[in-house]
């Protein structure tokens, strides 16, 4: 398995759908914190794939902590890994220039083309190995605790600190200047069906000559022999014309080594190329940490609850922070949900901050499952497989939709959530079914909420349809009633 700064296991992810990222305005918040869109895009992709176990979350949290504690480390790694990436990218471009994406049709290539490929591949391999040597020296320099960084360092150690590493560099140097002007010695093997199978380059061959004068010496037989000597039984002269069998066999021998280099380049790419892209996540994360710290807000790495207990102590809504002129006016929330109480109905007057609370909780969950710190005093979260949301369409453009069309659209949206939801999903609903009369809406919605509960999904509902309480069992849900003014010392909405 290839090494990663982001993942212990690259196959085990949850889902945060695009609608949820949009509804919670996470990208908008981070566009204020980190304006560079390329790296932010990479960061958002990571958020869409929440981690599903504590070990994976700690893996990332510790990496962020290492970067917080060693401020220059991220910068140096970034520079070095960008160098590595550039070498791989240039190699790709050079390959394209040579019109040889792969050597699959290598029998059709000329000997000069084969030589060029071999030279290019050996040069790229050498550059990549030197780049890895630099990367290793950077990681050696710093005191690190994160398993992610340690595993990269260990991997590099097993490559760089070996005799083989030096041998490979020497081989690269040899083939970097490979020439067709001298002798080219090759070895061929016939396969079981009498066809030429393996074709390989060999170093100059020597045989002992049965001559007392020369017995102490060794000669490259191919240099010294002529076809009229008494050693006819050892070697036979062959035709040499361009395009003949001998040239084709030589070409495939050259490309045999070139292919090994190419495969090695691809494997090095598989192992290290993505690290540069992965650093983007940490660059945004570090900026987010510094941004919140600089505002004097509490920022903490969340604990992971193993008892299904969730604690949210003094949490701030990230979106509100990035919008506020003065963060001091923002009043944080505190909330604790015990086991079986992970279904929440948030009721309250208009402007009381129901949506903001929902957004803060949803954002917290996504950031926590991405391994990020949370703007709060103390947070302990459960892990969900899937984070889904449906926000009322009232803020979206509805075009020519009628009320009934709008209701139907909401049903469709909810249907898609129902299809995705599974046990241990978290569903965030904001003012759902408000486009129909409250009695009907409440009844319809309660069916769906009961279904979520039945399958083991958690939900948080913001609504002002108090009627819904009639239809729902209250023993497995918490009801929060927000009053106007509760949220803000001075409303900025």
């Amino acid at each position, binding site marked *: 398995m290839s090494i990663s700064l982001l993942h212990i296991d690259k196959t085990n992810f949850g889902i945060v759908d695009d609608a949820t990222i949009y509804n919670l305005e996470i990208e908008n918040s981070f566009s204020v914190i980190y304006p560079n869109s390329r790296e932010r895009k990479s960061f958002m992709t990571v958020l869409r794939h929440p981690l599903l176990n504590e070990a994976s979350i700690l893996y990332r949290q510790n990496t962020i902590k290492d970067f917080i504690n060693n401020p220059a480390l991220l910068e140096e790694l970034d520079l070095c890994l960008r160098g590595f990436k550039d070498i791989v990218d240039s190699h790709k471009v050079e390959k394209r220039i040579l019109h040889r994406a792969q050597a699959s049709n290598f029998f059709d290539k000329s000997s000069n083309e084969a030589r060029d490929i071999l030279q290019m591949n050996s040069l790229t391999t050498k550059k990549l190995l030197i780049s890895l040597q630099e990367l290793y020296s950077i990681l050696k320099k710093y005191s690190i605790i994160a398993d992610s960084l340690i595993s990269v360092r260990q991997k590099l150690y097993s490559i760089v600190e070996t005799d*083989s590493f030096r041998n490979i560099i020497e081989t690269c140097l040899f083939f970097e200047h490979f020439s067709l002007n001298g002798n080219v010695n090759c070895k*061929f093997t016939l396969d079981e069906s009498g066809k030429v199978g393996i074709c390989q380059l060999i170093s100059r061959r020597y045989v002992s000559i049965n001559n007392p004068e020369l017995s102490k010496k060794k000669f490259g*037989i191919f240099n010294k022999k002529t076809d009229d000597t008494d050693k006819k039984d050892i*070697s036979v002269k062959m035709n040499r014309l361009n395009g003949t069998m001998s040239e084709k066999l030589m070409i495939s021998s050259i490309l*045999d080594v070139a292919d090994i280099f190419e495969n090695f380049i691809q494997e090095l790419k598989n192992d290290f190329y993505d690290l540069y892209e992965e650093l983007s996540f940490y660059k945004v994360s570090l900026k987010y940490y510094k941004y919140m710290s600089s505002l004097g807000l509490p920022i903490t790495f969340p604990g992971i609850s193993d008892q299904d207990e969730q604690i949210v102590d003094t949490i701030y809504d990230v979106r509100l922070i990035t919008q506020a002129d003065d963060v001091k006016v923002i009043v944080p929330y505190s909330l604790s949900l015990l086991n079986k109480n992970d279904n929440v109905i948030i009721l309250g007057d208009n402007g009381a901050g129901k949506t903001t609370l929902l957004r803060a909780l949803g954002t917290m969950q996504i950031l926590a499952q991405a391994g990020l710190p949370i703007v709060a005093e103390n947070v302990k979260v459960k892990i969900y497989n899937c984070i889904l949301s449906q926000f009322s369409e009232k803020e979206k453009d509805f075009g020519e939709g009628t009320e009934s069309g709008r209701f139907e659209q909401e049903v469709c949206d909810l249907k898609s959530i129902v299809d995705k939801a599974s046990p241990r999903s978290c569903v965030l609903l904001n003012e759902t079914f408000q486009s129909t009369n409250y009695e009907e809406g409440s009844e319809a919605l309660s069916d769906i909420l009961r*279904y979520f509960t039945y399958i083991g999904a958690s939900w948080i509902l913001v609504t002002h349809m108090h009627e819904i309480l009639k239809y729902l069992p209250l023993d497995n849900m918490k009801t929060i009633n927000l009053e106007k003014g509760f949220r803000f010392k001075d409303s900025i909405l």
Partner: protein
Amino acid sequence: MKPSFLFKRQNACISSEVIDDLHISDILTKNAISVLRSVCDRNVILERQAVFKYILTPEGKRAVSDLIDSLRELSKNCNLYRESMLFIEKVFLNIKILENYIDVIEKINNLESANTVICSIRTFWCNDEKVSVIRGIKESLNIIKPIIGSISVYDICISGDVWVTRDKSSVSFSDELLSNLESIGYKHSIIEQKLRPIDIELDGILRKLFENELNEIEQNLMEYKQLESEISDLTDYIEELEFYLEITELVELAAGKQVPICFPTVSDEKIVNIYNAYDITLFAKQKYDIVPNDVSMIKDQFYFIIGPNSGGKTTYIRCVGVNLLLFLCGCPIFADNATIYPFDCIYTHFPQDDQTHGKGRLDYEVERIESIMTNISADSFLICNEIFNGTTETIGLKLLMDLADRASELEIFGFCVTHYSSIIQSSYPVLSVKTSDDDSNKRLYKIYRVYSKQQAKAIDIIKKYNMDYQSLIQNFKMIKE
């Protein structure tokens, strides 16, 4: 004459229209279909059933798969040998063919079934005379193999001149590089180079370079030239075994989807009794939640089938047709159990828009039915789907009744799907499609006998989103299952 795995193969009587109508080509290859086009008599059905029973055991499957792999290898090398113009290549291939031959004979000997077909094949190929030949080949190969090893590797130097020489175990750059890469944790899989035939010049050079060794090999191979016709007989088995394996794979696929199989009892009386029959052609459409149906044809012979659109009428008759055809070719069928008469042929007529050959649809259909009824025998099975639709109900019904009367007169078994629901008034038995009892008119894909007038419901009531609590729970449970 060499025995066959198919026991006996009769002349093809199943037309390509039947194969198309029943969607057989969706699930089987041309090779298997070519076998299915010849239905068998009682004995052959029983013999083939016995072979299938053996192949459906894990040991049988393994033994037959191994055998077919070896036969394919033998056939491939024989073809290469025939095509090759090069001395060296022919020598190498000759050795491979002999090895393949031994392998095939040993694998035939490994078929452990006691059924007649396999016993006769084993006896034919593994008798004392053949065992003695095999022993001789093995002895010769023991002499040849080390020699071949010594001539298979050589070196070339390309400089001013090109020289070819015997190999002195030189170590290649690639091997050194791969070894270094492996020690830093990059284990490369062996790069498969494209095999390249040697040319005439190199062929000559290698002959010169390894003259003595090649002469010795040739002498050892000389006496096995006469095996050529035997080898050709062996490779004829490939198609026969591929048929068995293909059906076996279908059975395994069905088993994975909880679809049962059975070997029907071959009935002396003209009856068709199948319990829980499945239409496995639906697999080709990735549909695996197939609703099984019963087929019971004892007293009555010719049935009409009516019912709402998309209710499963066509699927039902296809299910009967496919399972019947499989049975008639000695294959297992996809049902819980069955007793079936060995019909001598199956005829079908399904609507095909593009095949009216310039005639009006009705004229074409009348002509086609006429042609079928001319060739059909009392022991044949007839399946018609939505025929005589391109006319008024009165004419359509009359034509249908005429057909049923003729079929009945000839005592032909068969089904005819029609949307003329008034056919229920006739004296012929009628089957219909079951729908749910409530207003939803949901298709249950179950076929049942109807005795009274019943009109197919024209309007479906569907639930648009199935978002009520009960539907959601039901859906969830279904997905979970």
